């Protein structure tokens, strides 16, 4: 009992100490290593406002940024508007902000309003030459210095918003790349499957019909554009259907075995991460030996991860060649596209530690290892 108490206490103390230590360290750094207080304060406030602005101009981001901008400028009040609505303000100024901003939004030029008791400086916020909003600053006294400062701040905010735009187009580009990487049914496979089915049409029409339906099921899954992730169970059933088609071609010479811990079946996995590996194993393991051989898929439960291996007992390959295949740019056409594709996607999604490991040697078969974390944080 006492020990448990001590353990709990010591753990909590550790956390507390760690947090306090970090806070303290941050404090001392602020005070000792920077002499120029004003520069530091300005940069610090700008840095605090930047992350919010980097998410684009929304009510939420404006609300977060405007507080820091207010502190930065030290004026009576600061407000940010979009083209048609006042997004956020800090200090006593209300919706009438938009009245001041209208002229700026229309003309795209900075405007200065002298007035009682407060004057206003309004500067435009522009992304790629388009006005997206305005920054309005209110103060008792409008000096030339203040106007200049506000103009520069407005330019800085515009810069951040432009970066946000860049971020989101980069994201869209990545997404497009991901989708392109995702579904690449090999044209050879389509050709082979259809030829095999055609060969059964006369001799065994029922079989041909079954296979055609299998092909339809497979294509329906592989070409569906709805999701980036699927469950291991669905991925395995895709492999299953793929194998039915390959088996129709190779007959009993192709043996396949599957061993799965039922606990990992609901694990979310990247779409089509397994079928290319099986296809690869059949292609390199079997075809060089006239289609004789065994492919083994094992999915293990390893705590917070699922470990999947795809193994063939084929001819294997030179490790150097395997390395070249993995280093290949998967967006280029060529052999081994499946492996490099899956490898790249795994690394992009889960991090560099989650790439494929290919164990191979000449004449020793090949085994491809894949690790998938069970927790799906952030990425949908």
């Amino acid at each position, binding site marked *: 009992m*006492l020990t*448990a108490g001590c353990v*709990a206490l010591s753990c909590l103390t550790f956390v507390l100490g760690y947090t306090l230590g970090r806070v303290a360290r941050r404090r001392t750094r602020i005070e000792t290593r920077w002499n120029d207080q004003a520069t530091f304060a300005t940069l610090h406030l700008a840095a605090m406002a930047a992350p919010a602005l980097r998410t684009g101009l929304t009510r939420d981001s404006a609300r977060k940024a405007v507080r820091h901008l207010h502190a930065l400028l030290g004026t009576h009040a600061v407000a940010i508007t979009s083209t048609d609505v006042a997004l956020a303000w800090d200090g006593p100024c209300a919706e009438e902000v938009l009245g001041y901003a209208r002229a700026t939004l229309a003309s795209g030029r900075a405007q200065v309003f002298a007035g009682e008791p407060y004057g206003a400086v309004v500067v435009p916020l522009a992304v790629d030459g388009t006005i997206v909003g305005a920054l309005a600053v209110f103060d008792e006294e409008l000096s030339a210095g203040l106007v200049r400062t506000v103009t520069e701040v407005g330019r800085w905010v515009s810069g951040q918003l432009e970066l946000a735009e860049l971020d989101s187009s980069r994201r869209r580009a990545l997404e497009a790349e991901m989708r392109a990487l995702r579904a690449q049914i090999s044209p050879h496979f389509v050709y082979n499957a259809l030829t095999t089915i055609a060969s059964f049409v006369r001799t065994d029409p029922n079989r041909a019909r079954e296979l055609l339906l299998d092909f339809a099921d497979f294509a329906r899954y592989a070409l569906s554009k709805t999701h980036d992730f699927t469950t291991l169970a669905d991925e*395995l059933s895709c492999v299953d259907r793929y194998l039915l088609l390959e088996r129709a071609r190779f007959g009993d010479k192709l043996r396949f075995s599957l061993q799965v*811990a039922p606990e990992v079946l609901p694990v979310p996995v990247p779409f089509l991460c397994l079928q290319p590996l099986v296809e690869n194993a059949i292609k390199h393991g079997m075809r060089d030996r006239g289609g004789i051989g065994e492919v083994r898929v094992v999915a293990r439960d*390893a705590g*917070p991860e699922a470990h999947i291996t795809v193994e063939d007992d084929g001819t294997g390959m030179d490790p150097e060649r395997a390395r070249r295949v993995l280093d290949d740019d998967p967006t280029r056409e060529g052999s081994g596209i499946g492996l490099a594709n899956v490898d790249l996607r795994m690394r992009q999604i889960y*991090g560099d530690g989650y790439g494929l490991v290919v164990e191979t040697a000449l004449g020793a078969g090949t085994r491809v290892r894949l690790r998938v974390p069970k927790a799906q*944080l952030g990425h949908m």
Partner: protein
Amino acid sequence: MTVAVLSWTAFVVLLGISVSAARPRRYSAPAQLQAARRAVRPWRNGAAISSEFTSAAVCLGLAGLSSASGGWHPAGVAGGFVIVLALVVAPLRRSRTYTLPDFAEWRLGSVPLRCLTTMLSLVIGMAFLVAQLHAAGVVVRLLTGMPAWAGWAALAAAGVAIALAGGTGSVTSVQASQYWLKLVIFVGVGVVLWAVWWHHLPSGDVTAFVAGLPDGLWEGAVGTSYGAADPSAAPAHAPAHAPAHAPAHAPAHAPAPAHAHAPDLAPAPQGGGDGMAGLLPGALMVLLACALGTMGLPHVIVRLHVALDGHEARRSIVAAQAMLALFCVVPPLYGVLSAVVARGGVMDEIVLLLPARMLPGPAGDLLTGLLAAGAFVAFLATACGVLSAVGGAISACVSRATGASVFRGAVLAVALTALALTMATDPSGSMPLMMLGFSLSAATLCPLLLLGIWWRRLTDAGVLAGAVAGGGVTAALVVCEQTGLNLGVPTSHPASVAVPLAFAVMVVISLVTPGRVPGGVGRMMARMHLPEPSERAGGHRSSPGADRSPSGRVPHTDDY
């Protein structure tokens, strides 16, 4: 020694049965592939959850029988399952975060919070693990006369072996089959013992027994009051226990009086009806801690992710609760009987010695062996579940930092730490340790889960402050209790102060720091609360392999 051999044999047989139920299967024929992809169904998952819970249920139930505050724990845990079902299960499963630290990081976007949650899971899991090891030590010492560490080592080794070797087979199946084995053994042996007792009892004594029964149970000093209330039972069975096991439990009984009171969960005044009003707050607090603490237990949460989706996870929890309810018959079954038959000593020790006292000879030995094996399997189930859950949480933390998989190492390290802690603690503390686990979970992880799932404005600063406050108060009160500083109900039941405090701090600090509400809360809420698209119903495949008749296929009409 016969008992030792018998119980060992029984244990090995039980383990063999349950492991063979889950041996890795390799499928190769096309028709079998469908079977290989069969996920864990709710009933089986539920059986696994309750299997990992039985040792807590039985031990706490038995401990409660002999404690003054009464055995409210099973009822509290059942209530806890209802709360988990209503508020936690489906959203947590749908969040697709595997452990609580994962959940904390995903929901609040804070890595320090992840570390704190990992540590809390570790402490709670450790409390459970140490309690299991101690219990195994007691069983081994009582039945074989071997030193307690033999039991610890055996349990830790078996737990690590199953947690690690389970990779390709199904640990769920191991646990689920163990549930049924345990139920059959505990209820079966109990019924046999009751039958024996009934058979030996002159009919007139039954009414005397029933009349005398309750007082003793309320008083807590189980053995002595029963000896007085039911004089006929004691002489009938007294000779039974003396020759057969005198050497084995002579050492066990010596420290018994100390045990009976040291782990007492409620220091409230003991006695008849007058003391009962004083017991009320204690009983309520036990119920509260169990009801709110259940949701934070690491081995329960991990099991949710074995279910296919939110619906199935819900069904698993209902199944688990139903099966656990079935198991709640066990503590009274033995508790009442041993109150009648045995005298003195700690309740869980008496239970193990009960068959030998009532049935001298090989029959008694056999029953004792079965009972011991069943108890050992129960400890093993809990230990294995906690080991893999806590080991998983730690290794997930490491892998997110380094990318390497250290699951095996983490499990081993957790087991070794638990062994070291077991050596450093006293066996009498194992029940309070489990209660401490529940209280700590109720005061830290429960508010994190409930607020994280249902409240949009929760912030990482709020959770950090709330968890530190709740955990700190719990720890401080435990220290107070250990040093003899009595502050009334809070000292014996830390949850009474810590839980409301943790909730209050979490809410207030979150409201004070509105700027720290993580981005994308709306999306997280949608992910947690919207039911998964019921893809499985239509599926990518129109029909399973079995029914592939020409007319069995319905063409898909939805576009893709």
